[in-house]
């Protein structure tokens, strides 16, 4: 079986608005940048996969036919992958399957977002919720995360200020990320003083609304340009969760509150990648977290620290860029979260770390292995990937 590797990557600086670009413009630019980065001839691709979650923000339904003409690999579209914010990582997993199966040598995965073309995301995200029992209450992304945060604080006696430590870490990391949308550090007190959206979630706990684009060229080992470490997809895991989050927050079945579903997805990925002790065998992690609480739950569910300890450990300096196991040295979704691209950006940042090309964000990797995650819905479905050099 062929080992799928990352041959080239590209990402667009994340901004609230990109008024000078259409969706088609972004796709074209980012696609060619990734191929150029790989050193491969753009005519030498045999597959194109689109990471494309709900397109209500674009105002175009079934947008997978828009803007594809002349893109590298566009003579062989292999599909649009839609898994909400997990689309990018799920699309990357599919591209790796095509290469691994030997049915394609080089597959380009591309995603682009224009997030500011509608007044608000209510329509776009409204289809997440059950029309009979959830639209009648304000069950949305923010309140869903707030429910998790409340339970976490009660279960582990964590204060709001301790909860804010993860945002402080990420915003500090974002200063060093030239692609980040938010590049100003914040203090815990500033997070705690920011407007209260839904107790205990405050404005600075939340990822911004972002436009952006990202692309990854996947191919067989040795088919890209030389001079770079080979970064291979070492293992994947995934867990499709429940639609009704209330079914997963009762004693005996509370994966919505403790991340057990994510742990199951990680166990799959670890088994394939041969990881027995993630705390010592993982060098770095890029974890998807649109809210600080998601990152805390993720760190624990992935086995990187015991339950309930993530917030305090981060407050003590663990998981920072200069720690033994940095988490989100790019700043993560906290600093920019374009939905089609965000899963791809986790892989791209992981790859840059393994290549030693992360610039100011570069961390010292104790192990040449990076963990990536992406989440669909409100902590509902999970994708986990392990990249290794």
């Amino acid at each position: 079986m062929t080992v799928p590797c990352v041959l080239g990557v590209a990402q667009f600086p994340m901004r609230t608005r990109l008024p000078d670009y259409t969706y088609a413009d972004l796709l074209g630019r980012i696609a060619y940048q990734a191929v150029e980065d790989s050193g491969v001839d753009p005519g030498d691709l045999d597959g194109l996969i689109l990471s494309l979650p709900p397109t209500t923000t674009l105002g175009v339904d079934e947008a997978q036919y828009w803007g594809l003409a002349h893109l590298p690999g566009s003579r062989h579209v292999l599909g649009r992958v839609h898994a909400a914010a997990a689309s990018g990582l799920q699309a990357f997993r599919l591209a790796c399957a095509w290469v691994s199966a030997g049915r394609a040598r080089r597959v380009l995965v591309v995603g682009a977002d224009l997030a500011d073309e509608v007044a608000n995301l209510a329509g776009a995200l409204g289809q997440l919720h059950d029309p009979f029992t959830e639209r009648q209450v304000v069950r949305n992304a923010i309140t869903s995360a707030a429910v998790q945060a409340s339970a976490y604080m009660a279960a582990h006696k964590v204060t709001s200020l301790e909860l804010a430590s993860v945002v402080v870490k990420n915003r500090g990391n974002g200063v060093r990320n030239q692609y980040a949308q938010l590049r100003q550090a914040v203090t815990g007190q500033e997070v705690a003083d920011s407007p209260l959206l839904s107790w205990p979630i405050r404005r600075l706990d939340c990822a911004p609304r972002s436009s952006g684009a990202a692309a990854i060229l996947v191919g067989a080992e040795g088919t890209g340009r030389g001079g770079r470490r080979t970064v291979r997809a070492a293992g994947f895991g995934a867990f499709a969760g429940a639609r009704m989050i209330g079914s997963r927050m009762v004693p005996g079945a509370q994966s919505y509150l403790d991340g057990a579903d994510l742990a199951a997805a990680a166990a799959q990925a670890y088994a394939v990648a041969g990881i027995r002790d993630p705390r010592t065998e993982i060098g770095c992690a890029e974890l998807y977290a649109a809210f600080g609480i998601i990152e805390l739950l993720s760190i624990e569910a992935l086995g990187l620290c015991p339950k309930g300890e993530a917030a305090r450990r981060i407050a003590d300096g663990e998981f920072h860029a200069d720690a033994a196991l940095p988490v989100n040295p790019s700043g993560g979704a906290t600093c920019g979260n374009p939905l089609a691209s965000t899963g791809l950006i986790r892989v791209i940042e992981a790859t840059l770390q393994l290549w030693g090309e992360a610039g100011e964000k570069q961390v010292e990797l104790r192990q040449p292995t990076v963990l990536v995650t992406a989440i669909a819905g409100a902590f509902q479905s999970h994708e986990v990937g392990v990249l290794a050099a």
Partner: protein
Amino acid sequence: MKGEVAILGAAARVGASVAADLESEVRSVVLDSLASSKLDLDDIDAVVTVASDTLDGVMVPIRAEVAGAFGKMPLNIPSSAGHALAAAVVLLESGQARHVLLAGWGAASKLAHHDSRSIQADPFHDRPAGAVPAQVAALQASELLDEFPDLPPHGITFADGAVALVLGSSEGHDAAVRIADAGTSSRGYYPEDDKVDPLRWVNEAMAKWRQQPAKPQVAVSGPGRTAEARAATAFTDATPSGPALLPSGSEAWFGPATALFQAFQLHQQLSRTGGEGVLIDMAGPMGQHVTCVRLAGGAA
């Protein structure tokens, strides 16, 4: 994975209008396909879905439990049945899964009352000119009929449907219908080379097959009867009135998953008679995202 990928079980429900209870229909075909494969849901480790958020009114990847996906490795490919079927094949061949459940559905009968697909066109150049999928398909059909007047007239009938296939290794399943080959070909919203003949795309998609099929059963799904008939001419016996051509997607179109019904029909046919089959899925306003799948085997 040892052996080839095979369809181990299949079930389908397609009708004029079942939208009122589509979730139950999806569950029924999933359970029936598992029963026909003699596997349990516990044996499935990945679920691939094909369905449109817009047709469903609910975000499909967050409701994949309707297809039995809870706890499984999900993959949602709303672009076409062909893409999803090819994805299921590579999930198996790459070792990401041992058994895959592929489920697709759609309640397109609602489009008969109001075709909301006008929001599918580029808002800057195409929509102001009135471009909608129905019009684009009609333009293509008109061009094809000008050149090939013996093709059937254009038309498409909206329906509701749900289909499920169980896929796994053919090892130990000697009579299973195997997926022998797959290929793709695609163009932009308006084909870059200005050529709208789907036969060209079908031939491209089949060009790299290890083996060209001889006298296969053919099942096509596309943007309308004219384009489908033209695509089927890739096989000389697949005439509209001939025995080699199975009922096409335009006779009961239920969204991007439609060609799964053609796959189901081929599976049923080849399971009875053996031989070879070709599935042609043409998705998009002109069917410009083409997947061709060669199936083989079944009963001797």
